[in-house]
């Protein structure tokens, strides 16, 4: 750890392959400023425009979003000066394509939604970028490549493509490549279909860069990126009698470094860590992470609020984070009986669970994310609020993504929700929260203090204020 002359601590991210620096002020204060907002200003939200997933690639240069209409939009960061990352610049649209279309399963008389559930980037190997996108049933591997040259001077074709009359050809020349406007092409390279009976909720690329897993409510399959006509089932929790069903798989992820290890979370609030070396079918977990329920908190909705909606390994692979309806928990992989840290996201909602059940908000699946060096975690809430928890300094802040706070580089003011009693100035009472405005998807740049949060149909990008 070294100090610059300004007294700013510089940390290097241990797992990064290239030197990247993160800037933190002494004391760990981060001031977040508005950077950009993407999406329509319209209050009338078209259902197809609802953002359903957000993901940075491994360098943070690309940011992909998926929506309910089956489209993927990729933004690219225009870095003016790559040697000085503190001079960040904007994200602009890089590519847009229709990833999935609505389908109909005639055998089961079921419509298959085109909504993109998850996007995962593959580590870059060559000039092209690859990502996996999935809806409820089918995973697709997309190649995104740039074309900035085109050939000119064909012998047999005119410029417009018509074939020449061979009798008119009197000379021979070599076609040349001339510059053209940058064109970004997205093409589906693989389609991994027909392997899931239930709805796919997760995909995760293995650290071996050859395989990936896909998880639905009851099963997890292992794929090879090159092979589409078969996959291996590695977890199956479907009971022989469906009446005995008590839990489903809610999320799954590979360990960031150990290619044999993955975890999956359940609707009962448990996380199982499995080692693929132990057996082909990983029904028996290697570790079971579970915190006993507090009996004093028992309610009609205990099962719902304990269901885990997201699980994410830390970048260093030592911890994992889980999100349930009211809290976030950080687990040490070496300790199974309780989390090492618990953060209450919106505890004031505990007394409102019945209303939230009535309007279906209690079923919302919030995601969570780590920052680049695993010192800060973030998740979303209602009223377009999102919460950032600084683990090291034990601070947390509630911020709001709204058009009103959208002036360039405007510093976001911390928000506070008044749980009860007398409401102070600038506080918002629980009853005036808008439960239709929810932030389910958030992402943190892997190497920088740039965060993105998705409201219903808008994508907000914030960055840490730099002096």
């Amino acid at each position: 750890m070294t100090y610059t002359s300004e007294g700013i601590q510089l940390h290097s991210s241990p797992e990064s392959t290239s030197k990247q620096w993160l800037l933190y002020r002494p004391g760990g204060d981060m001031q977040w400023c508005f950077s950009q907002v993407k999406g329509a200003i319209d209050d009338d939200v078209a259902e197809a425009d609802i953002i359903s997933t957000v993901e940075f690639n491994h360098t943070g240069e690309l940011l992909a979003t998926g929506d309910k209409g089956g489209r993927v939009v990729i933004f690219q960061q225009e870095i003016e000066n790559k040697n000085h990352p503190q001079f960040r610049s904007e994200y602009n649209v890089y590519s847009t394509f229709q990833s999935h279309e609505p389908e109909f399963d005639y055998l089961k008389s079921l419509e298959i939604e085109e909504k993109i559930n998850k996007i995962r980037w593959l580590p870059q190997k060559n000039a092209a970028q690859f990502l996996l996108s999935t809806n409820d049933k089918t995973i697709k591997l997309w190649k995104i490549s740039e074309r900035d040259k085109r050939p000119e001077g064909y012998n047999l074709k005119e410029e417009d493509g018509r074939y020449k009359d061979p009798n008119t050809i009197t000379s021979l020349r070599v076609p040349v490549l001339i510059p053209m406007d940058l064109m970004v092409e997205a093409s589906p390279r693989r389609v991994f279909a027909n392997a899931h009976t239930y709805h796919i909720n997760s995909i995760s690329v293995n650290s071996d860069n050859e395989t990936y897993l896909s998880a639905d409510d009851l099963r997890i399959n292992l794929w090879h990126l090159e092979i589409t006509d078969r996959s291996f089932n590695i977890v199956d929790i479907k009971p022989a009698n469906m009446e005995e069903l008590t839990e489903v798989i809610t999320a799954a992820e590979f360990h960031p470094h150990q290619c044999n290890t993955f975890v999956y979370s359940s609707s009962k609030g448990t996380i199982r860590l499995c080692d693929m070396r132990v057996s082909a079918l990983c029904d028996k977990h290697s570790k079971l992470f579970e915190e006993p329920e507090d009996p004093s908190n028992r309610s009609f909705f205990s099962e719902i609020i304990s269901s885990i909606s997201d699980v994410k390994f830390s970048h260093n692979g030592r911890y994992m984070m889980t999100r349930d309806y009211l809290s976030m928990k950080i687990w040490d992989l070496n300790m199974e009986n309780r989390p090492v840290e618990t953060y209450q996201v919106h505890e004031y909602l505990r007394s409102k669970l019945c209303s939230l059940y009535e309007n279906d908000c209690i079923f919302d699946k919030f995601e969570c994310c780590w920052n680049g060096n695993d010192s800060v975690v973030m998740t979303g809430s209602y009223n377009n609020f999102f919460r950032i928890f600084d683990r090291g300094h034990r601070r947390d802040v509630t911020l709001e993504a709204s058009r009103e706070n959208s002036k360039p580089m405007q510093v976001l003011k911390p928000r506070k929700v008044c749980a009860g009693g007398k409401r102070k100035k600038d506080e918002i009472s629980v009853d005036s929260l808008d439960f239709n405005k929810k932030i389910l998807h958030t992402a943190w740049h892997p190497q920088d203090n740039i965060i993105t949060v998705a409201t219903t149909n808008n994508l907000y990008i914030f960055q840490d204020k730099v002096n």
Partner: protein
Amino acid sequence: MISTMECAVDAQSLISMSLMKIHNSRTQRGGIKLHKNLLVSYVLRNARQVYIKEKYAEIYRMQQYEEVMTVCNEIQELNPLDLDAEDTDDEEQTRAACCGEEASLCDAACQRGAAQPEAHARTASALLSGCPIEDGGKEPEPSDYRSCCMEASPLSHFDQFPALQDRHCNKTTVLDLDTHVVTTVENGYLYQDCCCDALQCGQGAQSPAKKRKVEFGCCISEVEEISDFTAARKRAKREDCSYSNPEYTDTSNISNLISIFGSGFSGLLSRQTDLEQICSKQALASLGAWTRAIVAF
């Protein structure tokens, strides 16, 4: 143990809300969501448990009141001189047996209970707690459900009042939520099948008991992993003369719900208005119980 605050939320409204959610999930785009329906079924189960407890407490109170009134009427026809001094000890015991909140009612009932031949009235709470003499303070077990139950008492001196044998419920229907057996007993006061732990308390049926198994398959034809949803619908049918609550004589609502779910969830589509009626308080009272929450796959 559901917290008191949540208890304030009407369990019945939660049940109807949950049923509507399950019904609506059929028409949602993308097919039935297994995870969400599983969670809804947990709420349904929790609400059902609370509802049953509340209902049994209510039955107990009503039953106590009715029995007191019945016994009062009967006592008036008795010769007060027939009451033995011996009985006082038994009165104490039965009073102790009829534990529960309505102690005053219990006392009254138990005093009169000494006059009842070969039986002593068991309260609903006694029913719920199995054998209250042994285990009076036990939490009512929702999986056991007995209606009015006149049971042969081990205390033999009740025999001196044979005249009152006939003055009891002629027909009792009970259901066992664990074995899915519905038992109707006629012409009698004593019934091994009155007790859900039949073997435990059975004294030998004095009269033939008709056992009727209510079974019902409910096939949901959505996805390939459809399980035959064979659940015995629980019938709480009481034709006890001493308890004239119309809810308990109305089986049509149960039949309605059974027929609705008997045709899979498509039954719900065509019977939406009926469902609303059924989800009303009256109907829910006669709904009985579900051993398993609905799993629509």
